[in-house]
């Protein structure tokens, strides 16, 4: 079976940002995303997700390495200073590279 290397970018951030991040990742050249609600803790303290307004969301994007790098750079520039956010990259293997 032919598997093709691709990058998975995972973003965990304030729920209020979801729409904006989805806009940004399309601007960076990604063709899809998956999102779900999470709770958690980090440097900005606990996010209990009790008020929907204090929610946390995890967004996963599979993309070509160049797109992933692009996206991470944009996140750093536009969001890292002001928002509770964690973003990381990892390696995955997909079957249909043209989808991403």
């Amino acid at each position, binding site marked *: 079976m032919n598997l093709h290397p691709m990058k998975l970018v995972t973003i965990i951030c*304030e729920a*209020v940002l979801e*729409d*904006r991040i989805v806009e940004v990742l399309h601007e960076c050249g990604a063709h899809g995303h998956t999102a779900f609600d999470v709770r958690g803790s980090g440097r900005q303290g606990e996010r209990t*997700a*009790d*008020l929907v307004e204090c929610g946390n969301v995890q967004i996963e994007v599979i993309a070509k390495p160049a797109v992933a790098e692009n996206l991470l750079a944009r996140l750093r520039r536009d969001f890292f200073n002001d928002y509770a956010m964690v973003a990381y990259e990892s390696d995955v293997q997909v079957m249909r590279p043209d989808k991403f």
Partner: protein
Amino acid sequence: MDLLTAIQSNLFSPAVLFFVLGVFAAVTKSDLKFPESLYTTLTIYLLTAIGFKGGVAIHEAGIGAVWLPALVAMGLGGLIPLWTYPVLRKLGKFSMADAGAIAAHYGSVSAVTFIAATNFLKSIHEPFENYASAFLAVMESPAIIVGVMLGKGVLGGSKFSLSDPGVRHALRDAVLGKGVLLLIGAMVIGSLCGKRGMESVEGFFVTPFQGVLALFLLEMGMVAGRRLSDLKKVGVFLLLFGVTAPLMHGFAGVLLGGWVGLSIGGATLLGVLAASASYIAAPAAVRLSVPEANPTFSLTAALAITFPFNISLGIPLFFEAAKLLHA
């Protein structure tokens, strides 16, 4: 009924007591947790019900009786940030962003505080203009817009720009946000349906309404209780502000309400609205458009200080003030 009786009757209502229970649950770190979807569901229900009832009342009273006090209410909401902002800047030493953010919260309104006030009036059999929920609906957005502009520095330098994607998202949320949409939408529906429509949905929008509020305040108590630990991060100035601002705004609202011809109950409600601070519409919109502002300040003040103050002492206070005014 004098002030003390009014306060006592309010404190021993199921709604306020369930709020206290919620705070207790949060402070003792009980494993009680409302599902997120229940919180959202109760919010949708309360806003829809209060909007619909208000609409039916508008249908009865005629729009002619409503527009003037509604306009006054709206103006009050939009003006509040203009005097809270300099106070927060000068006396509170807050940054531009933080002062604008807090001003936006205090100019905007809290639907649940309003609903608690209507329940208080109902429980002491004090009549009020049922269409008062129209004031609630129109007071939500203006202050947010004004506060955001102040926070972005319109007064000096100005980073405020509609091409900022955060500002765009924020404005859409402030104007078309779920709170405004449900309230105004249900109000229009109620005013189109009138009494006949009410009959069919009364068993859902009226019968369980007060009990649902009690359950919701249990959750609000937990939410507020979890923020009590942030009180020390917030500083003495904001603690005082969280009590004096609602007092001043509340009395201003009562005065304006009397001036524009509202009944004792109606003036009380306008006072409560002015006194209340938003913890739903404002936080999201402000977070998106003024990200430099620290949300701990505004949310803690609105939720952990002003909200409990209003539903426990504020409501009966503004009611007594409205009575005095009419006497």
